[in-house]
């Protein structure tokens, strides 16, 4: 944690606190907590994510096209 404080602003890819979001269950099946893969779990119908993990896309980009933007197009880090 001490190391995190030295990170420069605007480099979330170096932050391990974000990874820790995967350690908190995001969903429930009845009383059974479910984890969200990578802190997102987008195979669900609705997810709650950090606002920093929700990147605006232009209105004219179809959803099925935008769904192909994956790790290879590091959306939030390449802006």
């Amino acid at each position, binding site marked *: 944690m001490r190391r995190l404080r030295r990170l420069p602003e605007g480099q*979330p890819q170096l932050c391990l606190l974000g*990874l*820790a979001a995967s350690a908190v269950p995001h969903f429930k099946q009845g009383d059974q907590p479910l984890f969200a893969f990578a802190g997102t779990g987008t195979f*669900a119908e609705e997810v709650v994510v950090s606002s920093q993990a929700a990147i605006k896309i232009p209105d004219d980009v179809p959803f099925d096209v*935008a769904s192909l933007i*994956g790790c290879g197009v590091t959306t939030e880090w390449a802006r």
Partner: protein
Amino acid sequence: MQTSAKRRVRHEHLGLTVVDDVGDLGADEVVVDRHEVPTGLEGGEVELEHRRAVGEHHGDRVTRLQAERAQACTSRLASPRSSPELTSRPSGSTSAVYVGSSRAMAQKPRSGIGADTSGWLRPRRERVLITLRRSAGHGDVRRREETGVERTRERCDASGSPASGGRREARSSRRRHRGGPGPGQVRVRIAATGVCHSDLSGMNGTIPIAVPAVLGTKAPARSSAWAPASPASRKAITSSSRGCPRAATAPTA
């Protein structure tokens, strides 16, 4: 486990069949795996709670190894409950039903993930492949609704009467659990989703993950609720950036 977690689907609803052919999956077939063979399973019953889809789309390939193991597991499940092997976790004598890479799943997390996270990375158990064949004309659930743990759960809840309103009840029950968004969070409604190789790696154990989990790391979505003081947007793509608290950049352009 909760009572609901032990709900099972009977044979006539979602039947077990032996994989007798190695090749493309049929339109009415799915291959699923489980972390372990549940104890006390009656022949022909399946605990959907443990279901994880491996390949369920028409055209997915099934390897010969997968088929052989599915065959072995199916015969084990179909055998009488008095079988001593069914009353305990599969042992070394039944290693034929193990997925070959499963041993690696129990290893400690790989370096680079961070030593502090080892506590919540549960080791994966041995996995077993079985094959389910849906009844012909079983149209109560569309194929796209077969994916995802939550959807599987819905189906499990509705298993008693597929055509009844059970699924609707399950859905409203789930909505009661909706939480957030808290400060700095946004709730988004997934409009589409891609399947990343990371999802496959999380599923087969290459990437150790906390389970049970809902997979999926990124998807275009419509924002349905922003926390107060969050920038407004109505079309967004979620990302596994996980939200570093120190990130200084704003989420919208």
